[in-house]
């Protein structure tokens, strides 16, 4: 008998359908894994459970009784504990204040002393059995792994009977991950219900009693521990055989260099990376999160200050801002990772969004040439098959996949020589992804190049001509055709020598205990 039942939950945001009659049943004392691609609806479902979002339709039963979670406080009261993917820590408060937020045991005159908080923290950390962080430090002064651990500690304090961990390991180190997996099993033994969301299939298979797969906003299958192979899970996640998702490799790679980067250094994480991107080539950037990959893109696009030399078609260039990068003379375009906050202007029309990057080219004496703008927009809608009723409609009324197409259309309108994709297929349905992959092939056929940072090793192996795996701010390995396999990407990500023969990637992942590729929606 299921302890927790979520039945036919539906939720939409504007034009985006996040959940489509999704169902999930969990029993007491189990770890229930939840897997699916970016945008499949996992995070949305658990946020409804935690009270952070309200469902449009459907019902939730706890121990047979219908319940509602109108807000997070109510959910906590009913025994739901959540470790949020993007963390729910308050930056200007200390670790102790965050962990015991709402549970302060006021001392003299209603004050909570630092010392009391500190002691309670250490007591908690001792019982958790792992180092967390300095209780007095403000959260905005902590590193990401520390924040993740604080988030976990915070959840425990409320003694929840249902625990949700949304991508809890992508920021953690190996020891911490092993601790967390064991911790989950212990909590389950105590009779609690754990819902464990992860992108790391081997992790899930290690720890979960049952695994439910989500795709396009609904549950598509549940398998018990040991029943499903990775392949089966992946094909459930994608809904079709992997092969048909990716277009044929037809691009001819020129020998002339398009973009040459020498000794790029930026921030604290990018130490020294050099590479050459050839014309018509798709160069993949891989590796574990936070190894400096984002900094490469930020440096090339002019968002972050960097040292090193960059040459475009042989000529040295310096880029100080995105407007320089996107300019006609240069032609470097970046498709950002977070569409909503970096990619589209949600309230503005589809037309305004698409023409934004080429606005300066559409001006006659400062005035917008409407017919030229219309031409650009119409050709983009056509070329990218953007489904929209009226180009004057706001972008937020479009589906997630179409919104991403708008971003691509906007950037490709500048006719860039190099398109940089920074983990840009998040929250995009499979169908649109296939269209995007085909588009990229077409782009390279015209002589442009693509620099692609992907956390999904599948994308890297099937789309890229070469892959650079970055580790600790340096190029760990360069994988050339024939050597680009999931296994090699994983090996290089961890600093191990790559294999020139074949090894079952699944076996490898399990024995190495690897983790996260990345947080996904």
């Amino acid at each position, binding site marked *: 008998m299921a302890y927790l039942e979520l039945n036919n939950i539906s939720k939409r945001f504007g034009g985006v359908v996040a959940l489509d009659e999704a169902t999930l049943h969990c029993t007491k004392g189990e770890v229930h894994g939840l897997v699916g691609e970016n945008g499949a609806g996992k995070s949305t479902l658990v946020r409804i459970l*935690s009270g*952070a979002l309200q469902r449009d339709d459907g019902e939730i039963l706890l121990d047979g009784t219908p319940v509602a979670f109108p*807000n*997070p*406080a109510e959910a*906590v*009261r009913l025994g739901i504990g959540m470790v*949020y993917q993007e*963390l*729910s*820590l*308050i*930056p*200007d*408060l200390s670790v102790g*204040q*965050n962990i015991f*937020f*709402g*549970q*302060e045991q*006021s001392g003299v*005159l*209603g*004050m*909570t*002393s*630092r010392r009391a908080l*500190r002691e*309670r923290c*250490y*007591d*908690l*950390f*001792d*019982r*958790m*059995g*792992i*180092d*967390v962080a*300095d*209780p*007095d*430090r*403000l959260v*905005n*002064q*902590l*590193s990401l792994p520390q924040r993740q651990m604080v988030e976990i500690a915070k959840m*425990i*304090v*409320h*003694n929840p009977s249902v625990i949700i961990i949304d991508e809890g390991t992508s920021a953690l180190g190996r020891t911490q991950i092993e601790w967390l997996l064991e*911790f989950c099993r*212990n909590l389950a033994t*105590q009779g609690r219900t754990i819902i464990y969301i992860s992108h790391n299939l081997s992790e899930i298979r290690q720890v979960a009693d049952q695994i439910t797969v989500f795709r396009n906003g609904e549950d598509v299958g549940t398998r018990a521990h040991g029943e499903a192979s990775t392949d089966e899970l992946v094909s459930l996640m994608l809904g079709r055989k992997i092969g048909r998702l990716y277009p044929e490799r037809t691009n001819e790679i020129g020998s002339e260099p398009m973009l040459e980067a020498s000794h790029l250094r930026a921030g*604290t994480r990018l130490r020294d990376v050099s590479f050459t991107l050839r014309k018509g080539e798709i160069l993949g950037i891989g590796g574990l999160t936070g190894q400096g990959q984002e900094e490469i893109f930020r440096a090339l696009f002019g968002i972050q200050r960097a040292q090193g030399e960059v040459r475009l078609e042989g000529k040295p260039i310096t880029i100080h801002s995105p407007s320089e990068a996107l300019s006609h003379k240069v032609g470097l375009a970046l498709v950002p990772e977070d569409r909503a906050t970096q990619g589209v202007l949600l309230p503005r029309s589809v037309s305004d969004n698409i023409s934004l990057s080429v606005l300066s080219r559409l001006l006659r004496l400062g005035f917008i040439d409407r017919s030229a703008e219309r031409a650009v927009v119409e050709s983009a809608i056509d070329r990218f098959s953007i489904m929209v009723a009226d180009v004057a409609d706001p972008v937020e009324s479009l589906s997630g996949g179409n919104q991403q197409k708008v971003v691509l259309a906007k950037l490709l309108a500048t006719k860039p020589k190099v398109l940089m994709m920074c983990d840009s297929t998040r929250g995009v349905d499979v169908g649109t992804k296939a269209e995007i992959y085909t588009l990229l092939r077409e782009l390279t056929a015209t002589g442009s190049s693509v620099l692609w940072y992907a956390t999904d090793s599948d994308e890297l192996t099937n789309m890229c001509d070469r892959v650079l795996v970055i580790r600790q701010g340096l190029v760990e390995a360069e994988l050339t055709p024939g050597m680009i396999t999931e296994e090699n990407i994983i090996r290089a990500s961890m600093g191990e020598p790559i294999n020139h023969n074949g090894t079952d990637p699944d076996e490898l992942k399990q024995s190495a205990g690897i983790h996260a590729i990345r947080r996904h929606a």
Partner: protein
Amino acid sequence: MMSTESITLESGKKHTKRYPVRPSITVYDLVPLILFILVISLIFIIKPRLANVQFVELKANAGLTLVLATAGQTLALLTGGIDLSIGGVLSLTSSLAATMMTDEPLNILLWCAIILLIGMGAGLINGYVIAVLRVPPFIATLASWSIFNGLALLVLEDPGGHVSEPLRALVRSDPLGIPNSIVFIAILIVAWLLFKRSKWGTRLYAVGSDEAKAYLNGTDIVRTKMLAYVLSGCFAAVAGLYRTVEVGLGSPIAGDPFILTSAAAALVGGMSLAGGRGDLVNSILGAFIMLFIFDLIQFAGISSFYTPMVQGLFLILAVTLNTIGYRLQIRKALEQ
């Protein structure tokens, strides 16, 4: 809800890492204090004869209105908002104090209570419009400022009225040997230090720091914001009452100079428009810095008309310094 002690986690307890205890105040928190010492040192250098008790008393008395207004503004800023209606409430209570208060003790008590209630009422209205109706604070309090301004004019058309004698005597009396204004400020600071570390104080900071995350952690955003604006309304109301007593008459435009100056003082004191950080003690220092700039200019022999100019330049300087300090603090911590 069961306490954490009942959660059984590990079968045995491990002794995990202990971190060295660090001081609760960092050098970056002291920027307003440093600026304050700087300004006051300059004053005493130019006019050494002023370094005496009467000066302190004079300044405390004269500055209390701004201190009160700044205190109210600080609480609104803490939640990431702003309260422009402080000026209006101040004007309203100033006018009421000058027209309705007689010399009878019962009447005085009654009107003091009414004035406080008006402050609370103003806060409730502001809080409701901002937290429930979700109107941006700038516009919401700009509109309510206009309303309270109008109400003030209804009560008193021109500056005038009279001060209730017993009240004035009480305020001037200094029963403790120290000027009442200083006692008041001291009490305010102590009350703040207690409030800051209390449940409600923590919630104010949480809402200002990241409202979305505060919500996820179970904070009642509406009540927290209401509290902030109610407190700021009360401070504004008391400020108006005090001003009438101190100056000797009421005015329907008494509050106007204090709206933006209270915000400027708080900003000099390290508050951020984004909310979530800062401290009332520093804001009070900021208020005194602004006041002392006026004196500094006078003593330096420059026309006092230039005061706002120096205050404006100082504001830019202080805000830039505070922002740099905040960023440096984070960067240094992350590097460790």
